[in-house]
């Protein structure tokens, strides 16, 4: 067969290329997407745990609003029913089942913390400039939306400003709705704090500095976050 040699050669070549495509970028993004999934999953699981637990001890679930203390309490100690409880009578094995489920949630949360730490150190080594302006979760989210450090470095500030607002942007382009002012950057503390009138302005300033930070690090490898932070402080209304 005429193509036999060619086929074998391309398979080897492609395998090599795929191998080389794995870099720090891909690891960060994988960790970041896993974190995002874990957050949603734990929230759903805790909701489920509350519903289950409320069959037995609705008063305790009502009193403990904080999710973490709630899960810890269920996992570690056997909660006792109040005298005039609305909860039903459960057998010992029913309660143990609930407790085991809570323990699983505890483990997942612990893994989540570990991954967060791992992602933090990775980000510190790879995009400290951006990390200093935004915090960890926002940096991670921005990277997921951009796809890679290289993509982010190639993006103009206006695109970064609207990352995460694609739906609103296309609605604007297509149907003439109002222009979006910010995407994922809306969750940044500075934008959140700004008055309604200044939100767009703040997002724009942040985006332009992030664009510079990403470019400088990607192409030059130097840290300029001190200067950028100063400039942001000066410019923000």
């Amino acid at each position: 067969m005429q193509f036999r040699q060619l086929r074998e050669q391309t398979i080897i070549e492609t395998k090599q290329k795929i191998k080389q495509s794995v870099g720090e970028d891909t690891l960060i993004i994988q960790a970041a997407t896993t974190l995002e999934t874990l957050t949603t999953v734990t929230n759903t699981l805790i909701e489920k745990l509350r519903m289950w637990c409320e069959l037995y001890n609705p008063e305790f679930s009502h009193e403990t609003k904080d999710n973490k203390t709630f899960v810890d309490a269920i996992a570690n100690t056997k909660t006792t029913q109040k005298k005039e409880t609305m909860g039903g009578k459960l057998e010992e094995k029913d309660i143990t089942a609930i407790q085991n489920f809570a323990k699983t949630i505890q483990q997942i949360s612990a893994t989540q913390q570990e991954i967060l730490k791992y992602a933090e150190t990775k980000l510190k080594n790879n995009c400290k400039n951006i990390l200093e302006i935004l915090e960890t979760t926002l940096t991670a989210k921005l990277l997921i939306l951009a796809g890679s450090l290289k993509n982010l470095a190639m993006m103009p500030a206006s695109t970064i400003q609207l990352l995460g607002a694609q739906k609103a942007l296309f609605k604007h382009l297509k149907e003439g709705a109002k222009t979006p002012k910010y995407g994922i950057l809306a969750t940044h503390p500075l934008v959140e704090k700004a008055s309604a009138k200044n939100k767009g302005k703040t997002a724009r300033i942040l985006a332009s500095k992030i664009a510079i930070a990403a470019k400088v690090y990607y192409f030059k490898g130097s840290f300029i976050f001190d200067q950028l932070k100063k400039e942001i402080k000066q410019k923000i209304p």
Partner: protein
Amino acid sequence: MIQEIFPGIFADNKKIYTKDSSGAYRLWNPITSKLSAALHKRLKQTFLKANDVVLYLGASTGTTVSHISDIVGEQGFVFAVEISPTVCRELVFLAEERQNIAPILADANQPQTYADKIKDVDWLYQDIAQKNQVEIFLKNLRFVKKNSHAFLIIKARSIDATKEPKQIFNDVREQLQQDTEIVQEINLEPYKKDHVMFVCKKN
């Protein structure tokens, strides 16, 4: 009752199949493969037969590639070009199973990067969701033999999300008519929204 409707392609009442090397019929799902969708929408001719050499741009994980590899058979050959390393992994596994697929990790927008590997293509198929998908198609047309056929799938949303799809298809038709003769044009509704397949013959 299964009948052969085109070389290597079989159909019973409402389903389409290809035959793999062991002789078993493999169902060709119109939702996961746009070529199967076109067959369901009465494609007149596939122009694809056993022993053909195929260039496939935008191979992804290789669902359609595997069926084309069934059709061209052991003496035929498929060059599968894909840009993303993530989905290309799956494609490599497929190529290791089948003796007639060469996976190429490259950007179809830059044909010079893989030009040394490819020659004498009988049949071109492109399914790439990029803004310049027509330009990519015209660039890669140079690998195809004269009077051979090329299939192009246009995703209107990738070219311009704000324009009317009909307008975009008209523009594409004009662009294509300069270098090729358009044999058939199929709208892939309801399997794919805003997608049209152009069947072209190279002048």
